[in-house]
């Protein structure tokens, strides 16, 4: 099994989620993150004092998939999240040693 982590633009989350679900991947975990990269942040000014906000709001999607599904899942994410503008984000894939479903104690692919 693998853990796919995708950093995407927040408004792309619905598309990513729906496309994954269509492919039978019904479980994901999402968190709000701030990204720093090529995409510029913005400037804020309070009573004439400027300051630079380098971080851009992003969404972090985590999905554990079986080995067979890794390629398909990451393709789906890339396609759904792409806007072709800087800041579309990254995906990274990590090896997973075990997965457990808390409710049942099932392990491995069963637990997904």
């Amino acid at each position: 099994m693998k853990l796919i982590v995708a950093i995407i633009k927040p408004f792309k989350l619905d598309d990513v989620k729906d496309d994954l679900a269509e492919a039978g991947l019904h479980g994901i975990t999402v968190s709000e993150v701030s990204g720093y990269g090529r995409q510029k942040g913005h400037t804020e000014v309070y009573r004439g004092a400027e300051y630079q906000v380098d971080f851009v709001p992003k969404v972090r999607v985590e999905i554990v998939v079986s080995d067979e599904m890794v390629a398909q899942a990451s393709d789906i994410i890339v396609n759904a999240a792409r806007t072709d503008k800087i800041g579309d984000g990254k995906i990274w894939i990590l090896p997973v040693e075990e997965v457990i479903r808390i409710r049942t104690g099932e392990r491995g692919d069963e637990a997904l």
Partner: protein
Amino acid sequence: MHINSGDTAWILASTALVLLMTPGLALFYGGMVRAKNVLGMMMQNFAAIGVVSLVWVWVTYSLAFGPDWGGHGIIGTLHFFGLNNIGDNPPGYSLTIPHVLFMAFQMMFAIITPALITGATADRLKFGSFILFITIWSVIVYAPVAHWVFDPNGWLFKKGAEDFAGGTVVHINAGVAGLAVALVVGKRKGWPKKAMPPHNVPMILLGAGLLWFGWFGFNAGSALSANLLASNAFVNTNTATAAALLGWILVEKLRDGKPTTLGAASGAIAGLVAITPACGYVNVAGATIIGLAAGILCALAVRLKFALKIDDALDVGGVHFIGGVIGALLIGFFGTKAIGGVNGIFHGGGASLLGKQALAVVVVAVYSFVVSWLLAMAIHKTIGFRITEEQEFEGMDTSLHAETAYEFGPSFGAP
């Protein structure tokens, strides 16, 4: 009836001020519950304005302030039903403001009283049942109690019990009713073991600020004219509130090590509650002591619920019942003819006033507790008064009202 434009101006303003208190209360209470229940709490308060406004103009005003039914001082007749005959003065009053404005001013008291109850029962009432409860409660509890105490033909009024702006009618009444309903519906899951801290303390402070502001209408407006009495009531209100605020945080400093902003806000409310019945009867020394007493004693009293195992979630008992009792009884000591009313013990008036005050406290507390408990029980046993465990876990906002209070993050759906 000769209308005085200055008095009318002040009571128009006061009536608006008292209306604002209920949204203020919604913020005060709403900030104290957890984020998943804030809308459920605020909704009960806003709905209370809706329901009681209509019930009052159509029915309960007449029951409370209509000509006495049978001369027993128990309840008014339907003479003013639907604001009929509103050209007549309310019996016993010689108003210098339009009768319909007096009706409106009193309406605001009738609104906030059941709204206060919602603090005791936070996080667990079914919305429809709550609506039903306050509708009936307004008729069978609020209206008679207001008649007894506020109406010159009411039996407690005639006995000489003093309540300038609603210590018994509003605060003791709401306080014990809150305890009664809390007993009927039971504790929140997890209480008292699990922490249920306020989700938004600045919102609490905003609510407290609006309540303090509006309370000047409540108390100084109860003079029903713009005069020296109103001015004294105003000053007493502010003085007692200030003293109570300091008294509460002093207790915290000594007991818990640190003064809290929730404590400051709570102290202020306790002071406002305690001075409510007394503000037109005491001088500034009396107000200072009543405030200090309320701040200190209510700060101690709010912990009783843990001993009594009553989940009075936002301390309606500890603040409104106890605060109301303090104010009502201390009139018996600090009342002075120099401001208004009759002399209490410390001004040479003897204990007779204190006796009347105690009578009013006991009668209102017992009546309100018993009838509120019976009514709540009747609802609980029939249509149910409490949300399901699942709804309680999920929170009232999404489960009862299909809403989420806050969405600060990036909007997921839309670009």
